């Protein structure tokens, strides 16, 4: 199990696990209330630099809030939005894609056309438009990102189902009297799981960046909830005077996305039948 082949999965998984622990145990781990402003202590540099104070490991932001606590709490939003979007978009995309691929004809036409319409717009643009329309909020954010992410699952699942439905085991299941929906969910869909898992991991990384981008643009979650994207946005104008306001949230996003991509890469190596054959 510890062979080099699984290294990516182990490292990526460990990073993700660590982040999940951070998010879940934020109230225990964070040294301070992420909202508490101490204006006298504003813009303190990280502890190890010249003017740092021991109380603030990663320094404080422009309102004197503890950077470390905000980054720990920020992981909640990133992971929650990432995971929820992946699950919802995956559900919607997989079901629609499976229906389109399996039943073909009108179902395929409709689903394909709709997904093409969604594909025609740049993904972030759809999300921005929806957020501008719905207003700030975690629920709205997840909804907006889901609406712009389901297409990818749909396309891949549809393609896979298209080839799977002609396979012998599907014909066999049908010959034994399996109804269409039963065959689809019991025999066809489970076989697409490998590709879906890989898409899901990469998609999660993209969604986390999208959440940060939307928060950066002020279209994400309300201002009182700390997120990495809004921290970047607020710290941007202080980049000359207090670079740590942007470095740490940036690093947090980087490490998270790196970890998830590593995991996705590893999973693909293991699960992709083409790569498997080459070996």
């Amino acid at each position, binding site marked *: 199990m510890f062979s080099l082949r699984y290294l990516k999965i182990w490292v990526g998984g460990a990073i993700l696990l660590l982040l999940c622990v951070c998010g879940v145990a934020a109230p225990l781990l964070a040294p301070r209330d992420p909202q508490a402003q101490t*204006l006298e202590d*504003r813009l303190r540099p990280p502890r190890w630099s010249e003017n740092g104070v021991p109380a603030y490991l990663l320094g404080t932001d*422009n309102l004197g809030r503890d950077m470390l606590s905000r980054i720990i709490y920020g992981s909640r939003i990133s992971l929650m939005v990432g995971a929820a979007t992946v699950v919802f978009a995956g559900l919607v995309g997989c079901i629609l894609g499976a229906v389109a691929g399996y039943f073909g004809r009108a179902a395929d036409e409709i689903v394909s056309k709709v997904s093409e319409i969604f594909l025609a717009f740049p993904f972030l643009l759809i999300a921005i438009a929806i957020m501008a329309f719905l207003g*700030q909020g975690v629920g709205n954010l997840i909804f907006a990102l889901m609406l712009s992410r389901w297409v990818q699952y749909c396309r891949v699942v549809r393609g896979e189902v298209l080839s799977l439905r002609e396979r012998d085991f599907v014909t066999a299941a049908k010959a034994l009297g399996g109804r269409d929906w039963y065959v689809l969910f019991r025999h066809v869909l489970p076989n697409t799981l490998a590709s879906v898992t890989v898409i899901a991991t990469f998609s999660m990384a993209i969604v986390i960046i999208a959440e940060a981008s939307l928060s950066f643009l*002020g279209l994400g979650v*309300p*201002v009182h909830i700390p997120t990495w994207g809004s921290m970047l946005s607020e710290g941007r*104008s*202080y980049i*000359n005077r207090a670079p740590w306001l942007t470095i740490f949230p940036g690093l947090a996003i980087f490490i998270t996305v790196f970890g998830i991509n590593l995991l996705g890469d590893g999973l693909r190596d293991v699960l992709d039948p083409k790569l498997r054959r080459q070996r």
Partner: protein
Amino acid sequence: MAISRRQFLTRTALGIGAAAAPGLLRSAGAASRDRVTIYHTSVADSINPYNHSSSPIYGDWQHVIEPLIELDYAKKEYVGVLAESWQFQGNKWVFKLRKGIKFHNGAPLTSRDVAFSVEKMRDEKGGSLQAPNFKDVTEVQTPDDQTVIFVTKQPLAIFLDRLENRFILSKVAGDKFGDKLYDNLIGTGPYKFVSYQRGGNLVFTRNDEYWGGKAAIKEVIFRKVTEDAARLAALESGQADFINNVPDHEVARLQKHPRVRIDKVEGLRMFFLAFNMAFKPWDNKLVRQAANYCVDAPAIIKNIFDGIGYPINGPVGANVIGADPALKRYPYDPQKARQLLAQAGFPNGCDIQLYYSAGRYPKDREVCQVVAAQMVKGGFRVELISQEWALFWDKQGVNGGKLPFYYIGRGSLTDADTLYDQYFRTGTTKRTNYSNPELDKIIEEQQKTADQKKRVALLRRAGKIIMEEATFIPLYNLADIYGLARNLIWKMRPDEKVLGWDMKIK
């Protein structure tokens, strides 16, 4: 054509280099002797010079078209520009025009030009946003070439305040160009209009025959750049010679810059938090007073604006006509706030929403977050809501009376009457829905009073009522911070106008 990633990168780098080269070369020299390029957050959005009511944009058009009178900020009194003298006679204001002034097309300035311009300013259908300034004027008479008489419904002592920034253009040109009048803007000003592109440059060139003496700079270019970083970069690289709204935390760094200099002046924009008294709990005076006790404006200035700001004592800033040195702001006392809230029937605190428009004013998002945290200490639970400016300011927002509590800045405030009339007089606007017959009477009486001393006394009485009633939370004036090329000399103004003839190159 397929290009590899490496090719793409090299080509992009070359492209960026080529685009940046002229800027880099210019930065080696100094500002051109003949031309000043100004990057400003607010530049005319329309070629119609009456299609706005914003101080910096008045400054843009004042290059070409001029007002009858202007406020001298040092003396705090009005001085003539196109008008030589004026008299307040009951319900009439009589202006004598300066003799010998010529428009850019050679036509002499006459009273008919004034009447024509007022007509254009009152033309709301034609896009003017300045019509309300003439709402009390019933007639403009032109008995002879040099005399203009404004007849008002009742004596209107504060008419000079309304007449500031009302610019005069040429009737001869107006008759000639008709609908294309504004594309061929002809005025009497120190500069002539050259060209305007929406989102691009607004260009003026010097009028060598200007009646008040030739300006030093030959060409003035305005460009609207709202992104702080872009304006700063342009100034540092030499693309711009002048920028406004330098973020205060960049001041220390820029002061060490070899080709850049910083100028600061106390601005006339007054920032405050406004209650809409049609909403609960703001209809309750005790709650409004409690809110006043919670907000620590000096702490906001010190910490958010690096100390570059001026807290307001009383209802208006000390340099505003009608200010009362005897009035003080509510001290910061969250304990007292909790007491008042309990007295008002909210012993367990009270939920409120604070609206603002992120990005409209300097550091507004930070300010509102600090205000929210301060109010929490005084027993309020605050939800922050940011809206797009158009939504925030329009009929759906402040001006429709739809927002209960909001952060706002009133620009070029020189006379307390402007604020009191607009925000606290019954029916003028829906911004606060405050109604107090006693205050209305004082405001009305003050507007009729010609004697400035008596008028100031009345304004002070109004101010006292406003403070006692806690109709809003006055906060501060900020410094207007400008960045300039080191060799550029200019006379600073507190009204956010940037004027080419105030400038000189060393």
